[in-house]
């Protein structure tokens, strides 16, 4: 059967809810969330902390199952952890006992790709993130920004269909963050992977995305879904344009309302 009769939807999220039972009763992290994402889109999800952004990413990656609803990756339901979704964690999650080279090779090793080929592919991606010369370093010797670059190279080397990034730059200083944002934008232009990127920085969302979803306070649903049509490259002049300011103001209004709402909930 041809799954491609309708235009290729990379990811379909259908009526997904996620409930966490706790001692104080059930916490509804996500409620009846639906959206679809076509191939090659750079989606940034923005939301206040505790709105269920990370929960959503964990569901798409297959780390947890939805309480109700379904998630499809290229027409197939996600029922377990799938290497087709390359995850990048805020905490880097590099293997401390492996060198940069071996970390980047990890996914290929799991695919039982021969050593020589593996090392060539890894070298290419280490180069791509600008870490040539650090192949034999252990993660401990690297700065936060370098660690996250290794993590990006490791995910890319595995050639996933979708990249999932969970607030990847949140722990980095402002300057390192900017360098990595630019690097990620370049990688996106070159590889055209479908990307889902989570952040609570509106500027980061505007700089990177081609589409932005703003989530409501808990229980998480979609508050606003908009196309980011800012021209590339998103350099300083774009960031100073009226268009940018208008978009930012628009997003900020939605986010602010949700943040206030979530603060009221916490105060109850």
């Amino acid at each position: 059967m041809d799954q491609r009769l309708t235009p290729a939807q990379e990811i379909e999220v259908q009526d997904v809810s996620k409930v966490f039972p706790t001692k104080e009763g059930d916490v509804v992290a996500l409620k009846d969330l639906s959206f679809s994402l076509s191939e090659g889109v750079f989606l940034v999800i923005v939301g206040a902390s505790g709105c269920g952004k990370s929960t959503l990413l964990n569901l798409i990656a297959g780390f947890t199952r939805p309480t109700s609803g379904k998630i499809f990756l290229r027409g197939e339901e996600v029922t377990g952890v799938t290497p087709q979704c390359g995850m990048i964690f805020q905490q880097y999650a590099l293997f401390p006992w492996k060198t940069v080279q071996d970390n980047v090779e990890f996914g290929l090793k799991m695919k039982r790709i021969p050593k020589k080929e593996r090392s060539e592919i890894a070298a290419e991606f280490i180069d791509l993130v600008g870490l040539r010369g650090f192949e034999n370093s252990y993660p401990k010797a690297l700065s936060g920004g370098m660690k996250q670059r290794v993590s990006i190279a490791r995910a890319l080397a595995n050639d996933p269909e979708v990249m999932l990034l969970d607030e990847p730059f949140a722990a980095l200083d402002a300057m390192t963050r900017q360098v990595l944002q630019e690097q990620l934008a370049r990688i996106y232009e070159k590889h055209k992977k479908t990307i889902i990127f989570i952040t609570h920085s509106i500027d980061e969302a505007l700089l990177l995305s081609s589409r932005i979803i703003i989530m409501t306070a808990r229980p998480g649903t979609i508050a606003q879904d908009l196309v980011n049509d800012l021209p590339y490259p998103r350099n300083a002049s774009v960031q100073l344009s009226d268009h940018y300011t208008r978009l930012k103001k628009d997003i900020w209004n939605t986010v602010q309302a949700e943040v206030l709402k979530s603060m009221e909930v916490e105060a109850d």
Partner: protein
Amino acid sequence: MKDKKGKGLLYAYISVASFVFFMLIWEIFCRLGFIEPIFLPAPSLIVLRAVKMVDQGTLFVHVLASTRRVMVGFMVSSLVAIPFGIFLGSSRKFKAVFDPLISLLRPLPSMSWIPISLLWLGITETQKYSIVFMGSFAPSLLYIIEATRGIDPILISAAQNLGASRWDVMREVILPGALPQIIAGLKVMLGIAWTCIISAELVAAEEGLGFLIMNAKEYFQTDTIFLGMLLISLTVIVIDVTFRMIEGKILPWTRD
């Protein structure tokens, strides 16, 4: 950097000086005849005894016998405990199966195994190995289970996300991730293995450092008793240092 090194050297000198000082006090105390050599021999007498035993070729027989027993028993115990512990540490179900047995075995001191092991195995080398094994296995297992549990779950998630199977996760993530903790635990266990073998040799043996001490007591050779005790300390120190050197080779990522 240079300052730190200089300080370290200074402390080393202090330690050496204090050692010499205490030995001198001990020597003078004995020479002045405050105490009978049969209760406390002077250090010089202990050294003399050591020289004599080296001449006779009996000293190293005892050291080697005990070292061999510890090593064999400890190796077998570790080789079983490491895979088994990782397995139990990563599966709640299997841990529940073995929990009662481990809980019963763990509180038993190695000494309590000596009578039954003598009955089953006689005064043999196998009996000595079994005492070391029984004394170190259950605590090693618990160390390894704890080490396995201590792994950051995000690393397991990351590995699965990159396509690792359950087996891959065990071999590529849990084993190396737990290794520093496992080795730290095994170092402690090695000390315990030594107490096991000495007690086993005190009770029934024809050679070994424990036997040396016990046998010397029968003949009131107090200098030999002290020599035996000194040799136990020295052997454990040498093995500990060796272990530390190997550790850096096995765990290159923990080096500074």
